[in-house]
């Protein structure tokens, strides 16, 4: 070691549909970078970041990944945020032996090869959707809801996967899925589907999409006479979630800022000082992912990606979102929380262990 820099790429949706995801994630990463650089960098090397706007979708993410690898000669990628972008990026990372650690991509496919084996160079800092889906299914049943209607975007790996896992867990635990409808990401008029939801008299409307769709659907649902409780996943977590439209809903998430653990509270305080906002899960996991990566590089003592990958796989790390160890599929084993939206506020509702 000694001297030089370590270049790390951040692939995140800095603009477009889910820009708060990218901005929060990047904020988290930058805070971690500052802290490490303040400490003198990793093994004496300063960290430098390249931020690319990969827009939460496959095409730009692939372009961005190719660009940072080919042009910027980056060996470490933090990102993408969204599973549907992380999956194609992971192919490129794996083929180029570049380490990719996604902060929040929860779809199982991200770290898996087609044959089910684990991608050597790909990791994530979050739990996965089979867990998240089960959490929400149990939560719904615990609240006494027996019937659910599922709406999902079949073109989004995350949404589609989470819907599937929820359905499986919900029906296995005795619930009944009374309707399932898919839509596409550019849809704005959901009246036809919502009319069906109202007609189905489902108690839960499970909508595991990102916040813009939740805002739209929520605003139209009332108008169409939907009385079901809306539920979803970590895609809801955004400062731009329309609290009026999502009122009465619940969603699973990676952490709650109300968590009294000191590591959480000091993180929230630090973040607030710098960015003047309460960190959401994306910022937190961006921070965690960066820390995981840097710790592994430090542990490996080199920026050789094969070594770093090995170091990561065996790393134990106390992160803000929980204590992290990777399982065989490079997925951390962590708790989930359920948050509720009520009267213009998002608040902690429950915590669920795997």
């Amino acid at each position, binding site marked *: 070691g000694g001297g030089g820099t370590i270049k790390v790429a951040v692939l995140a949706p*800095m*603009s477009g549909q889910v820009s708060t995801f990218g901005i929060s994630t990047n904020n988290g990463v930058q805070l971690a970078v500052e802290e490490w650089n303040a400490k003198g960098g990793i093994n004496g090397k300063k960290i430098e970041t*390249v*931020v*690319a*706007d990969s827009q939460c*979708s*496959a*095409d730009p993410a*692939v372009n961005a990944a*190719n*660009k940072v690898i*080919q*042009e910027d000669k980056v060996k470490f990628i933090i990102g993408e945020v969204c599973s*549907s972008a992380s*999956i*194609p990026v992971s*192919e490129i990372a794996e083929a180029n032996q570049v380490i990719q650690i996604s902060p929040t991509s929860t779809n199982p496919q991200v770290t898996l090869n*087609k044959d089910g084996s684990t991608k050597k160079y790909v990791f994530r800092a979050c739990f996965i959707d089979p867990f998240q889906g089960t959490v929400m299914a149990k939560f719904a049943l615990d609240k006494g809801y027996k019937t659910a209607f599922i709406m999902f*975007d*079949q*073109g*989004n*790996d995350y949404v*589609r996967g989470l819907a599937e896992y929820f359905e499986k867990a919900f029906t296995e635990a005795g619930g009944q899925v009374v309707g399932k409808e*898919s839509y*596409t*990401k550019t849809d704005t008029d959901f009246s036809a589907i919502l009319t069906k939801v109202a007609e189905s008299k489902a108690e839960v409307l499970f909508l595991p999409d990102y916040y813009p769709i939740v805002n739209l659907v929520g605003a139209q649902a009332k108008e169409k006479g939907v009385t079901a409780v809306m539920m979803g996943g970590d895609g809801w977590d955004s400062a731009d979630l329309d609290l009026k439209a999502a009122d009465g809903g619940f969603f699973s998430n990676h952490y709650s800022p109300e968590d009294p653990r000191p590591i959480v509270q000091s993180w929230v305080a630090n973040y607030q000082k710098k960015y003047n906002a309460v960190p959401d899960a994306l910022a937190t996991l961006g921070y965690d992912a960066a820390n995981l990566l840097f710790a592994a590089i430090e542990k490996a003592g080199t920026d050789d990606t094969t070594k770093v990958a090995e170091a990561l796989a065996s790393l134990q790390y106390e992160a803000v979102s929980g204590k992290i160890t990777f399982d065989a599929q490079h997925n951390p084993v962590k708790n989930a929380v359920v948050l509720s939206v009520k009267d213009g506020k998002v608040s902690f509702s429950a915590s669920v262990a795997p």
Partner: protein
Amino acid sequence: MKRISRTTLIFLGSIVAFTLVVQVLISLNVLSPFWNTILRQGAVMAIVSLGLNLIYGFNGQFSLGQWGFYAIGAYSAADITYRWTNDANSNGLTVLFFTVVLVGAAILILYRVFGKIRGVDPLSAFAIYLIAAIGLTALAVSIGNITAPGVNGLLKVLPANIANTVVYLLAVIIGGVLAAEVSFLFGLPVLTLGSDYFGIATLGFTIIVKVLLDNSDVMFGFVEMKGARGMIGIPKLTSWIWVMLFLILVLVITRNLLHSSYGRAIISVREDEIAAKAMGIDIGHYKTLTFVLGCLFAGLAGGLYAHINGFLHPDTFNFIKSFDPMIIVVFGGLGSVTGTIFAAFAWQLVLEGILRSILPPGFETWRYVVYPLLLLVMMLLKPNGLFGNYEIPYLRQVLPPKKSTEPKPAQTAKESL
């Protein structure tokens, strides 16, 4: 007596030289993979746009369907090579091969038969073609699946990279032919529509193809295409040399066709349909011919494109992008082959290359602010495109010398006229 003319030699010589020089630069890593990709995509764009220039520039049919056929070529070729490289299975190849052959044969035979009947209604003919095509496709699927293991074995005998190349080339060609056959079926009834309506129907086609691709996994069982999530894992086999070979092939075909009586017939349809009909030109036939040929080019280009990035996404085939070849053709000059090729490369280099690399990060959006302004200025300054209808000598129709020997007086009418 095979004598190749001087202009042909100069032209082919320089294009081959260009190809080789670029190849050397690539091999020496002077041209980074980034620019290599842009050049290859430029060549692909040139092929798509040449096809469109035939259809729109020379035959006058305002088609926005080029992108849909491009998508068909891309996905079908990708499916063949994907199955071969990922699953070591050639059933994609065999099924599509037999589909293309059987449907193609049926189209040719039926076309002959219909040609003999007076006053065939295009819509009714379409119904018959469609039934035949569906039946034969079903047949091809079973033949293909039966023969696949045999073909697998055959291909395994070859060294891996040769087998891959063979499958790749067949895939590209089959993709092209498939696009051409679909364009025949679609074009048959739709080409009877008036110009703008034809444009709109073809735009509809592009959108329908995109929606079908969005649903390819859920509705149609092509799990490997992954629908709206994007197809990954396609082998990246399209090299600079391959695209250029295809481009040269397409170019020579276009040029030779245009410089023949058939080419003039095609152009006469653009000029005045009623007059063309009255001069004995079967305008329906030439519209179909041109449309199918143009779409064949689009399909070939699609197959080439699929193997550049190894990644296909239905959003690439979004209708908004279907204007790109139209913009290129107009930008280069309608009815100028030279212009189209130049414009395709220039467009790709500027929009994807230069604008991307000169804009600082965070300013990506500016690309699409600058680009339309360039387009606007360009259209205001040169409404007929960069090249108008100029052609370089090889592509220009070299007229035979005027027979300006003094006209035989007995055969000429009054001089006063």
